[in-house]
């Protein structure tokens, strides 16, 4: 490990960024499914942001006289309510469009916080070890012993329904996985030569973490994050289904599926369609995550 080699390793990481992105895109394009996933994801995001302009009706506006209308394609359906109406005559299409906000927001924010918390604690525990690491690992083991859903139901019962309560309930358990991943990755990275190279060049441990280790393990964290986001969205929907997720006034897919439960005999679409929206979103995120995994981390590559 000569000095020149050390310098070479450090220089390598600052290649021109747009060349870097073009390279990433060229490899990513080779995964058609992953691209499809990304496209659907972008459609959902646009749908969520521009919901007020796209949605044909106000999601909460009731019109009791047009209640339980089937989707347009089925007889009895009208084009005014393309996907039909629910038991209060609210337009299902508009509610699905607005519902995407809750799911996307919950998915993204809860993952973002979990990654952040998991990262910081994981980095500290992984790099400095000692007392701090044992305490955190024991605590994370303790949290792991709880099945995810029961834990979130517990927290929601304490905090009561609410958007930010939901975020807290989800992140309270989700950060553990990222903590263990980051801690594990840091410990394995520490053994690699480029750490000694950086130390040999007089880098402080803080710099080493932020400049060297973090970028390298960021890949596997990002991959896990995308895959866990789907799980978060499903958990949020499950909680709303049980009636303890998002408060009823905000249109959320989980509550919509629950609303339709009493009407599965004569109005199957009330439950099925919002559920379908969840499946397609989570599917697209998983496909995108899978593609990301193949491109970013050949190590994690499954065939």
């Amino acid at each position, binding site marked *: 490990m000569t000095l020149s080699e050390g310098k070479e390793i450090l220089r390598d990481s600052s290649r021109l960024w747009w060349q870097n992105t073009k390279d990433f895109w060229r490899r990513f394009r080779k995964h058609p499914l992953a691209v499809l996933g990304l496209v659907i994801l972008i459609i959902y995001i646009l749908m969520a942001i521009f919901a007020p302009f796209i949605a044909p009706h106000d999601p909460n506006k009731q019109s009791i006289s047009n209640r339980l209308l089937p989707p347009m394609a089925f007889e009895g359906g009208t084009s005014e309510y393309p996907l039909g109406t629910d038991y209060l005559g609210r337009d299902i299409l508009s509610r699905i469009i607005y519902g995407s906000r809750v799911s996307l927001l919950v998915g993204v924010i809860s993952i973002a916080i979990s990654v952040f918390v998991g990262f910081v604690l994981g980095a500290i525990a992984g790099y400095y070890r000692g007392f701090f690491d044992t305490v955190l690992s*024991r605590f994370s*083991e*303790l949290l*792991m*012993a*709880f*099945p*995810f*859903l*029961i*834990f979130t*139901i*517990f*927290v929601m*019962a*304490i905090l*009561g329904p609410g958007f930010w309560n939901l975020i807290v309930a989800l992140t309270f358990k989700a950060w553990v996985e990222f903590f263990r991943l980051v801690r594990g990755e840091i410990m394995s990275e520490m053994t690699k030569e480029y750490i000694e190279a950086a130390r040999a060049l007089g880098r402080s441990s803080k710099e080493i973490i932020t400049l060297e280790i973090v970028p390298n393990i960021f890949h596997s964290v990002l991959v896990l994050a995308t895959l866990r986001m*789907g799980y978060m969205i*499903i958990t949020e*929907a*499950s909680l709303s*289904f*049980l009636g303890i997720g998002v408060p009823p006034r905000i249109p959320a897919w*989980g509550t919509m*599926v*629950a609303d*339709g*439960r009493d009407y*599965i*005999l004569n109005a*199957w679409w009330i*439950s*099925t369609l919002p*559920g*379908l929206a*969840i*499946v397609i979103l*989570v*599917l697209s995120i*998983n*496909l995108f995550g*899978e593609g990301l995994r193949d491109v970013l981390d050949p190590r994690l590559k*499954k*065939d």
Partner: protein
Amino acid sequence: MKKIKVLERILATIPLMLGVAILVFVFMRMLPGDPVDIMMGDSLATEAEMSMIRESMGLDEPFGSQLLSFLGGILKGDLGNSYMFNAPVKDVILRALPATIELALAAIVIALLLGVPIGILSAVKRNSWLDRITMGWAFLGISMPAFWLGLVLIILFGVNWGLLPTQGRLDHFVELKTITGIYTLDSILTGNLEAFKSSVRHLLLPGFTLGANLMAIVARVVRSSMIEVLEQDYVTLARAKGLVEWAVVTKHALRNALIPVITVVGLQVGVLLGGNMIVEQVFSWPGLGRLVVDAIYGRDYPLVQGAVMLYALTFVVANLIVDILYTNLNPKIEL
């Protein structure tokens, strides 16, 4: 040497369970709403009566002593009395537990029965149309929320085609003497064919709903580990020995490929336990999952504590079993 290591692992779970107990205890105390009020829902008890009951349940003692009595109780196996059923928590849980176990086992069996063969097939016939379809389905499997899949199955099988029962564990017109509480097992033990048929039919839809997610994961893991194993030298040796292809795949390759599957299934047990709360709710399956949800609402402290402790215990035990299974399946690794 191996025995001591196993003992160590078991002993290590004790502090973990203690931690879980304390965490559950603290959580329950943070729940808003006073259990006594809710419990007394029916009769118009006066304030004096309420406080008298609160004393009998030890709710007015300082937090610390409540915790100690609770932990002491666990050691003696007494988890206190459930408010909703005013019966010992132990009995209430034992009455509801077999249903949950039966459902979880059904889910695992369905997941493995479908997941493993699919995984093998798509590994052996890699990149064929079969592989793409199965992996596409597996992908869908992990993207579907259980409650939605459950409802769709009810709509299709229950309502439209009326093929499969969608509620409860047994047809009304069937009587079954319960021994263990696991209906399929009891019907075999008591030789009651009709009850067996009915209980299996009732297990199919909820079992598949709960197992779908696990099946997808198992299929993907089996496929990727089979692909890796099929490229190993010892598989070529097996072929060079003159073994017929399916023997090579099922005997030599599968045995090695299943090792990672065990760990995956073990980890998924936790998800399974959590998941069955939703499935039990959708299929009105009288198990522990549904009980816990109602108990949390009814602020039934002891019942929730008992149930969650049990969930955590099964989760930890499952991980332990996975480790033990892992070692004797893979001789290279000492526990």
